[in-house]
């Protein structure tokens, strides 16, 4: 097995409090040493990382790989290639596949396929309810024992409070979180964008921020009642940030994530009726963005997650009302946040890396991920923080060619990704072993 000595990189490892020019040696799939001016051993291949940032591999706790069932949109091969290109070494895939991942046998089948097809670590979310129908609990315990790492009906809010209570109670016996797509279905009705000045003007039906606030509020109360761990997916509203902050202060077991698009895009983009901007929850306004950034800074929001939701370009190419929600997110996540928040001085690189590594790992208690501790997994990325590039979906490795950042100029990009001590991505190409 190859050994690597990565020299002179700017190593940022928030979990270990490291932020310095340091060398790192990788041997046997593990981090063998981290330190100043390490000297090469006999079998080391030396990589000069001068000018580059070395970070633990990113962890995405919310993505959609579309396999099984909708491989035309994405599959494990293209999905994990895209993840690797974005610097993600662990991703958590959602259960809304066809069939839905709602039984242990499907979890087992996925795990098998992951072994052969995936280039990054893929963890599996099981459905909370059978078929995501919101009627009966799926076999949460059985799936937990088959290796599912979380439960979610993502895409749908579990409307029945009694069922959600049971899910939290049940999942807590296996120490696993229930991830909630929090939007009150009745208030959302057939809304397609954020309800506000822009929707009023365009005549498009709105999804009010209050729909999210009300739903989050129920989840927090149920988490307190059951002692279960609820994780709020893709927080997009100021009200939700406030509720989660209060709940955390009370010691309630709630964690939360925010996506790059909710941090960097507003509803005004929809004035062009471009369905590339259609997503759930919807893009909101600057007032909400300010609250989300505040929530990241004070720890209310634990992690950045992409909600990578690839759709074929064709499918999004229709009337705004008819278009499916979501878009590809792996390959733009880091660069978008680096360009929009770090380059503009609103945030710092260390904190961004923290929310993409140690933050998500801690939220789900994945102790072996999100750090570069000696003896730990060698999952890491090299980032060129100065690299300038323009987002072109056709150059992306995902099959989902619809992207709201198309044409945007970026500063900073992941240039190499290592999983388990092996390079899996380098300079635009996947390396399959």
């Amino acid at each position, binding site marked *: 097995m190859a050994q690597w000595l990565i020299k002179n990189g700017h190593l940022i490892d928030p979990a270990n409090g490291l932020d310095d020019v340091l060398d790192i040696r990788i041997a046997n799939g593990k981090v063998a040493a981290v330190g100043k001016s390490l000297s090469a051993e006999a079998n080391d291949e030396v990589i000069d990382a001068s000018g580059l940032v070395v970070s633990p591999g990113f962890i995405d706790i919310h993505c959609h790989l579309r396999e099984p069932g909708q491989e035309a949109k994405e599959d494990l091969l293209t999905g994990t290639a895209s993840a690797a290109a974005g610097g993600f070494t662990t991703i958590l895939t959602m259960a809304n596949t066809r069939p839905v991942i709602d039984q242990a046998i499907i979890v087992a089948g996925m795990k098998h396929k992951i072994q052969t097809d995936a280039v990054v670590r893929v963890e599996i979310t099981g459905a909370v309810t059978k078929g995501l129908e919101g009627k009966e609990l799926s076999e949460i315990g059985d799936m937990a024992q088959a290796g599912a790492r979380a439960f979610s009906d993502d895409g749908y809010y579990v409307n029945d409070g009694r069922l959600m209570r049971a899910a939290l109670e049940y999942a807590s016996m296996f120490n696993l979180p229930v991830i909630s797509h929090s939007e009150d279905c009745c208030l959302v009705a057939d809304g397609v964008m954020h*309800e*506000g*000045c822009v*929707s*009023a*003007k*365009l*005549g*498009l039906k*709105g999804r009010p921020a209050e729909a999210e606030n009300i739903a989050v509020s129920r989840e927090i109360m149920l988490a307190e009642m059951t002692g279960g761990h609820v994780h709020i997916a893709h927080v997009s509203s100021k009200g939700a940030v406030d509720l989660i902050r209060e709940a955390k202060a009370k010691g309630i077991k709630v964690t939360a994530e925010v996506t790059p698009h909710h941090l960097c895009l507003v509803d005004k983009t929809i004035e*062009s*009726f471009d369905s590339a901007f259609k997503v759930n929850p919807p893009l909101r306004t600057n007032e909400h963005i300010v609250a989300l950034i505040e929530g990241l800074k004070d720890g209310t929001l634990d992690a950045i997650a992409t909600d990578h939701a690839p759709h074929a370009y064709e499918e999004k*190419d*229709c*009337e*705004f*009302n*008819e278009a499916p929600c979501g878009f590809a997110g792996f390959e733009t996540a880091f660069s978008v946040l680096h360009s929009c928040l770090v380059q503009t001085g609103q945030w710092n690189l260390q904190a961004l890396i923290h929310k993409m590594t140690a933050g998500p790992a801690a939220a789900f208690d994945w102790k072996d991920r999100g750090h570069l501790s000696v003896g730990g997994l060698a999952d890491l990325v090299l980032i060129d923080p100065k690299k300038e590039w323009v987002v072109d979906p056709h150059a992306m490795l995902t099959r989902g060619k619809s992207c709201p950042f198309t044409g945007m100029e970026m500063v900073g990009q992941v240039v190499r990704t290592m999983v388990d001590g092996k390079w899996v991505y380098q300079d635009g190409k996947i390396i399959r072993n």
Partner: protein
Amino acid sequence: MRGQHILGLEHMSVADIERVLNTADEMKKVTKQDIKKLSTLRGKAIVNVFFENSTRTRSSFELAGKYLGADVINIAASTSSVAKGESLRDTLLTVQAMGVDAIVMRHSAEGAAQYATRYVKAVVINAGDGAHEHPTQGLLDLLTIRQHHGSIAGKKVAIVGDILHSRVARSNIWGLLKMGAEVHLGGPKTLIPKEMLDMGVTIHHRVEDAIADADVVNVLRIQLERQKKGLFPTPREYARIFGINDERLKLAKENVLVMHPGPMNRGLEISPDVAYGRFSAIEEQVNNGVAVRMAVLSLTLADGVQA
């Protein structure tokens, strides 16, 4: 304006609006002539693609095109063709392949006309896209007000009814504000988004306040399905509290102009005495509709009028 798409009044300049209204005044004379046929658009082909039924708007465009000497065809595309796997894009590409000069399009989806501009080289004229805009209706309403009151600037215009779902309301708001009118919206809270304040209007939930001293009262159609969705309790209550009747109309200015884009629910949003009363411009609106559409077609397809 040659080659320009007409998607909405939000982005139309004051100068262009004035050009349309001035041209429409000329066109209106033509519609009163014995022989109405001009040769302005001879050799041009216009297709009306209506994904939603609207006899009124479709025939108005059809007549306008024919009076100008163009060849006009109608395609009644049902939105349900989407369910059959035929997308809006497929329909547009088919129309595009016919090599027409203009597409007049009505669709239930907001932004559909703008979407069409991605696929067709022809001039696209929005004949109503969902709850977004209906620019020729907005223009014909402006023309009707200008003809009656002599000018639009400084007039108080009340738009009452279901603003939330109305493309007519949005086109009217943009057009009226651009031309210097004061716009007051009236109706139940559930049918007027409060964020419309941002557009520069005043909102009233007592319809009396909206129409007090108004120079124009534009009454919008109430769709009865809104009641089933819980946006107001009963048609009876709506008529009693928000309907425009003779009694309420006395609050407006003496020479008030009453408009309605049709079709009307008489006895609901408007009482028959008002609809057919001496202040009503409803028939005039229909007549102006043809003139405005002639103006829009001749300006975008032929740079004006050559009679």
